[in-house]
């Protein structure tokens, strides 16, 4: 083996490291370690001159190993591996010591920090001594993209990719795409109708030659990795012949069985066979098998839909025998845009949701003002009267340590929109109960000003309770909103006929399952975690899986659309490059040691190792395209034949030993 010559570079990172670590002393110390031929400290190693130091030293000192001690390798390991490569060194002959995130930023005693940094640098030097050059292999990228979720985020991402003439599979679990946006009446602050701006995009999705829409479907299984995912999608049975249904809706009209409509937020009923709303895409009816009496009675009762369907799309066969289909897809990247759930305000009993008829959630009020909604666009109380006063309560479940600490970002603005609509449709007084008004977007502050001028009453204070216990004549028959007006510094009681709760946006109830399906991480608040909160907001720790929209946290429509386009651009750039670099740090077998026991084969989740007969001897062989480099096989290998490249025992053991070395 050629003589090992190591270069060590200790970064100041301005004062981020140098402020609490004596970097010069560390560099001097590193120079005394075996095989280290050059050791330097420098203000910013990641800068071009910093990287040039490495490249020049590789030539001048004929370095064959490099160690940089700086920030987290999750940040700059690729940068320095690249610098090594440009200097003519295999990128795997590099080791990174994390002395910023794991030392200078988290401990404050400079002397102790300097000693810890020496330990970390020494361990990196000892480890890199055992590094080996690894071959960097590439694989092609499948140009198809899977988009999960058919709300505005998924629709936008799908259209952007399909308009680039790349195939998109758009999976939506509800019978129609549209998501929450199609439930909204108007959008703040422009007040343009939500349906009017969304339905053209929905129709585009329905007709697009490059989009295959899989509505009423759910992703069941994902395997493979970036560039070559394999996905199983369950296309749920609608119990109709989709090729024949024309969406005329006669079956729905004739069907006698009803339940509260989820789309109408329980304010109207839907039938057992239904189209969720008029502009549904695809325009097909769906049978709710739990409600359909024909299905429940095994064909003995009802059957009205069969009788009235002129297109012969509904038959005893489709109702009784149609089953879910499993569709297998192959895609190169995935965009997860699964949206949010509205916080259930009934868990805050003092607000009376579910107890008083005229306490509504935001989404219920959206349906009420919608012309196609349950009241035909009229703002009405349960008894059919028009309200004389309406209270709008902000931050219900948001900015509240008992529920969600975060701000849901859209509530202030939709609260203002409601005030405007109430003023437009009724003569009612409007009271906005807010903690702070957060009107940050384009035209938002102006909208707030407009509403102040339109005569909405703003009361700064968190509402304590909503009650029907009147104490004055004026309060009789009304709901009374009790709050502290923090600007006046006194308790107030405001009688109102209707109370609208601006309920928080929260992570989907099944976000854990979706996270596990696509190997996503979740933040403490339950939303999906981006790779970097500022600089990589649509990527995730899993290569090739991107996120967009409210599944990553509450956001408004403009931000959602921008993020969806960003995710689409990421997917398109992957397709445009056409190839990915495969993981090099994967398992390999030392055949001289392998006894073919098969324990590696047994433990591997990815079916990478397989015991085969080679010249009559049973040995394990690793399928390199399947191996992810998790290292489980090496742990169970009893002979030490199974090795993970770049994580070989001598590499880790030398690092561990060096960390606790008593000097």
């Amino acid at each position: 083996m050629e003589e090992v010559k190591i270069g060590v570079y200790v970064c100041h990172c301005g004062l981020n490291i140098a402020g609490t670590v004596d970097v010069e002393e560390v560099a001097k110390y590193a120079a005394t370690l075996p095989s280290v031929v050059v050791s330097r400290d420098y203000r910013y190693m990641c800068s071009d001159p910093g990287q040039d130091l490495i490249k020049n030293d590789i030539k001048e000192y004929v370095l064959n190993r490099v160690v940089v001690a700086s920030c987290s390798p999750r940040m700059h390991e690729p940068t320095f591996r690249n610098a090594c490569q440009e200097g003519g060194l295999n990128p795997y002959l590099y080791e990174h010591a994390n002395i910023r995130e794991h030392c200078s930023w988290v401990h404050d005693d400079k002397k102790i920090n300097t000693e810890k940094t020496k330990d970390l640098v020494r361990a990196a030097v000892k480890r890199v001594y055992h590094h080996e050059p690894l071959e960097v292999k590439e694989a092609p990228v499948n140009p198809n993209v899977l988009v999960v979720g058919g709300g505005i985020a998924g629709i936008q991402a799908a259209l952007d990719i399909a308009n680039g003439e790349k195939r998109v599979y758009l999976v939506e679990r509800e019978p129609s795409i549209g998501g929450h946006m199609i439930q909204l009446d108007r959008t703040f602050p422009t007040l343009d109708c939500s349906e009017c701006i969304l339905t053209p995009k929905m129709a585009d999705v329905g007709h697009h030659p490059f989009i295959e829409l899989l509505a009423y479907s759910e992703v069941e299984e994902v395997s493979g990795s970036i560039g070559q995912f394999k996905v199983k999608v369950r296309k749920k049975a609608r119990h109709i012949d989709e090729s024949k249904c024309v969406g005329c809706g006669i079956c729905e009209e004739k069907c006698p069985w009803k339940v509260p409509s989820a789309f109408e937020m329980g304010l109207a009923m839907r039938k057992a066979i239904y189209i969720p709303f008029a502009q549904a895409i695809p325009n097909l009816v769906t049978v709710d098998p739990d409600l359909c009496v024909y299905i429940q009675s095994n064909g003995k009762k009802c059957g009205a839909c069969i009788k009235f369907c002129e297109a012969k799309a509904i038959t005893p066969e489709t109702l009784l025998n149609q089953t879910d289909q499993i569709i297998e897809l192959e895609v190169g990247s995935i965009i997860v845009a699964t949206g949010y759930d509205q916080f259930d305000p009934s868990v805050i009993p003092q607000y009376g949701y579910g107890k008083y008829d005229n306490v509504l959630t935001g989404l219920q009020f959206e349906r009420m003002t919608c012309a196609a909604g349950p009241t035909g666009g009229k703002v009405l109380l349960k008894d059919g009267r028009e309200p004389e006063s309406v209270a709008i309560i902000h931050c219900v479940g948001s900015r509240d340590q008992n529920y969600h600490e975060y701000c849901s970002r859209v509530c202030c603005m939709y609260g203002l929109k409601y005030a405007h609509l109430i003023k437009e449709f009724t003569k009612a007084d409007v009271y906005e109960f807010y903690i702070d008004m957060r009107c940050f977007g384009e035209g938002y502050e102006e909208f707030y000003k407009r509403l102040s001028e339109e005569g909405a009453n703003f009361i700064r204070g968190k509402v304590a309770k909503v009650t029907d216990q009147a104490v004055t004549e004026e309060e009789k028959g009304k709901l009374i909103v009790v709050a502290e007006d923090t600007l006046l510094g006194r308790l107030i009681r405001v009688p109102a006929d209707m109370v609208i709760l601006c309920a928080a946006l929260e992570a989907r109830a099944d976000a854990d399952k979706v996270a596990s399906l696509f190997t996503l991480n979740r933040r403490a608040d339950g939303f999906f975690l981006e790779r970097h909160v500022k600089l990589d907001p649509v990527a995730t720790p899993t290569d090739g899986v991107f996120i967009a929209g409210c599944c990553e946290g509450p956001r408004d429509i403009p931000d959602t659309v921008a993020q969806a386009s960003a995710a689409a651009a990421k997917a398109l750039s992957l397709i445009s490059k056409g190839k990915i670099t495969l993981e090099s740090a994967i398992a390999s077998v030392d055949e001289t040691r392998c006894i073919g026991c098969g324990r590696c084969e047994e433990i591997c989740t990815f079916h990478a190792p397989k015991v085969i007969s080679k010249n009559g001897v049973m040995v394990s062989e690793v399928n390199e395209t399947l191996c992810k480099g998790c290292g489980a096989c090496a742990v169970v290998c009893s002979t030490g034949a199974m090795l993970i490249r770049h994580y070989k025992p001598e590499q880790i053991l030398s690092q561990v030993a060096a960390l606790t070395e008593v000097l």
Partner: protein
Amino acid sequence: MAEFEPQIIAFTCNWCTYAAADLAGTSRIHYPANVRIVRVMCSGMVNPMYVFKAFESGADGVIVAGCNYTDCHYIDGPVKCDAMFARLKKMVHVLGLEEERLRREMISTSEGVIFARVVEEMVEQLKKLGPSPFKIKMETLA
């Protein structure tokens, strides 16, 4: 005599706990400097041999930490780590070590605060236990 400062080696998976320690850093959450982190790709990659090496080299305690069961980049690494850890716990007695010197944690990417707390707790625990008897034995032999 200066107070005993235990040495801790933490094997952390690249995707979750290593990132949690990074987050503790970016959020400037301070914790004792007694811990040294070894990055592995998966908690299921930690070989008992690595843990023994840490004790042999003078560590007073070892943390093995990675993703939660639902967050694993490799689907079921934590389950494999659990199995290894159960075996490990039985084996440390052979070295004359207390089980409390070993700690198995699942700390997700967003839990920088929890990482810092685990290190604090471990330092406290080890201060109570005192230096590793194995280390003392090695020193007498030398």
